[in-house]
């Protein structure tokens, strides 16, 4: 039955249900016993106890590594990194160990883990608390990369991530914890399938995470102007829904990719490159990317705004593409 939930609350509900269904699911991270920094674990300690809702020392490397060790023996940890930025303290653990173990050991092990990394710009948090590094993880064999943008997806994808036997880098956007939306618990999610957020045939806008919400708003504005934009929310970057994007661009002939992360070396490059490789010159206009300039995220709000990909920018660029 469809209910209204927040983005944070939807993931919490998914996690709660998964913990009720499977005693091997547990979660670990700093301050989880008091509900987590963003309240994403509220009530779980009371329901499941301190063994299954575990606090942690400020030891990101050990949180990641210990959860991995526990996953290898058959438990299913949900790992909280607090801010995606701090997860960089556990990079060897994620990249050299977790992502590689199954392969290196010839298939003897699995790492069924959900690694939650709240990402993105939020309230003047400056350079060390604002990063979006999803393209890094998409580049690493062995990892699945989730970038949900709505309560519905944060519910269904969290469930799918916990059910997966692969390590899933699960990037929630800090700016939308409080976003409300309908959640149908019976809507299934299947990895690598995009969601059409808006229909249209004049141009294809590909996006993910919070930026997909802005892309949808942009499409509404564009629709009022008579420009039909198909907005494709990728939802996961590995695997990603090439087919949906290729089919859409084959129809529209115009491609715009928008993401919050730095444009240079961002996953938008992968999307544009893939489409160009497959479709060659079959474009009505040269494809475009919108991402952050290659600068650092500042503290002052007006400076922070300089780096944002806004709804307006998406609208303007879309118009240019359709001229």
């Amino acid at each position: 039955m469809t209910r209204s939930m927040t983005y944070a609350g939807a993931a919490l509900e998914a996690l709660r249900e998964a913990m009720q269904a499977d005693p091997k699911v547990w979660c670990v991270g700093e301050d989880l016993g008091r509900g987590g920094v963003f309240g994403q674990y509220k009530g779980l300690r009371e329901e499941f106890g301190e063994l299954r809702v575990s606090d942690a020392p400020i030891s990101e490397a050990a949180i990641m590594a210990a959860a991995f060790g526990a996953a290898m023996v058959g438990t299913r940890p949900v790992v909280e990194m607090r801010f995606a930025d701090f997860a960089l303290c556990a990079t060897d653990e994620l990249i050299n160990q977790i992502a590689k173990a199954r392969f290196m050991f010839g298939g003897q092990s699995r790492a069924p883990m959900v690694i939650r990394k709240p990402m993105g710009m939020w309230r003047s948090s400056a350079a060390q608390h604002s990063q979006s590094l999803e393209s890094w993880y998409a580049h690493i064999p062995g990892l699945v990369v989730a970038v949900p943008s709505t309560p519905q997806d944060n519910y269904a994808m969290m469930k799918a991530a916990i059910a997966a036997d692969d390590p899933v880098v699960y990037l929630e956007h800090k700016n939308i914890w409080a976003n409300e939306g309908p959640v149908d618990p019976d809507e299934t999610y299947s990895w690598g399938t995009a969601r059409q957020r808006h229909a249209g045939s004049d141009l294809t806008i590909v996006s993910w995470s919070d930026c997909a919400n802005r892309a949808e708003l942009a499409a509404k504005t564009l629709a009022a102007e008579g420009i039909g934009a198909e907005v494709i929310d990728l939802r996961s970057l590995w695997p990603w829904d090439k087919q949906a994007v290729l089919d859409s661009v084959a129809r529209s002939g115009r491609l715009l990719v928008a993401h919050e992360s730095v444009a240079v070396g961002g996953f938008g490059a992968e999307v544009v490159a893939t489409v160009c490789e497959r479709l060659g010159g079959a474009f009505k206009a040269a494809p475009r990317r919108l991402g952050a300039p290659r600068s650092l995220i500042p503290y002052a709000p007006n400076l922070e705004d300089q780096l944002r990909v806004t709804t307006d920018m998406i609208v303007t660029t879309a118009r240019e593409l359709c001229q």
Partner: protein
Amino acid sequence: MTAANYDTARGTALLEMMERIRAFERQAELAAIRDQLVLGAIHLSLGQEASAAGVIAALRRDDLLLSTHRGHGHTLAKGADPTAMMAELLGRETGCCGGKGGSMHIADFDVGMLGANGVVSANIPIGAGAAHGIKLLGDDRIVVNFFGDGAINRGPFLEGLNWAAVFELPVLFVCEDNEWSATTRTATMTAGAGAAARAQSLGLRSESVDGNDVEAVADLARDLVDAIRNSRQPAFLHARTFRQSGHTYFDPASYRSQAETQARIDADDPIERQRETLQGAGLAKDQLDAIRQAAEAEMVAALEAAKAAAFPPDESVFADVQDIGSPEREAF
């Protein structure tokens, strides 16, 4: 009761610094809560002023300092201008980092303050490295490196202390143990006998002190700083204190008993203790109140000046990224 040879001038200076730190943070809190002008998180060191004031009093101006997310007190004690600091908290052009860093990245290289850090424990080996640089350059400065009790559970604690000891570097590590790591009692997540024992196992001279007794801190710090300056060997100071406020200014600390917290504050506030010490040494209450009022007036003015300052020019977001391949707006 204070000893006959009590140094009233030093004691007064220590109180002054603690009052200035507290007044600065009270104004910062007002700027955040009353004025809604501080958007990012700020972490107050209310109740922890003694270790900042006491340790840094032992330093020369050209000595170096590194700090944490809870670094206003250290920065002020090292000699930074409170107006520039406040402007930084408000994200203004006149801020000590031009509005780019905010509270968690406050820094003033002119007074040897090489930066707060938003990543727990990260500054520990960086500070050891600053001392390594001093050794390579061959001068006689030293480095003081502050961090919290929660920071001793991250790897850089071990790597940084081992580094300093192996390379015989002039650095004083100061663990400000306020018993809390955000909403977690640090003791529940920390094994063994604590920070000083860990430091000792890594080969450092290691001392503990009542970190709310500013005179004791200052005495021990003077001793340690002299030893480091002469021996060029690192040392470790564990200062026991208490975090009077929530973790951030917007944290109501509902995970701990308000009554217990208040009792701790009433029984053991470093500023009140030093006021008593100075009264015991013959200073009048009026004199002490005047110190507080001066500090408050200074920080009210700092906040006013900061509020009057402009935001940084938009284009500055493209400055000071790098020389080679500096970003441009159209770089994507």
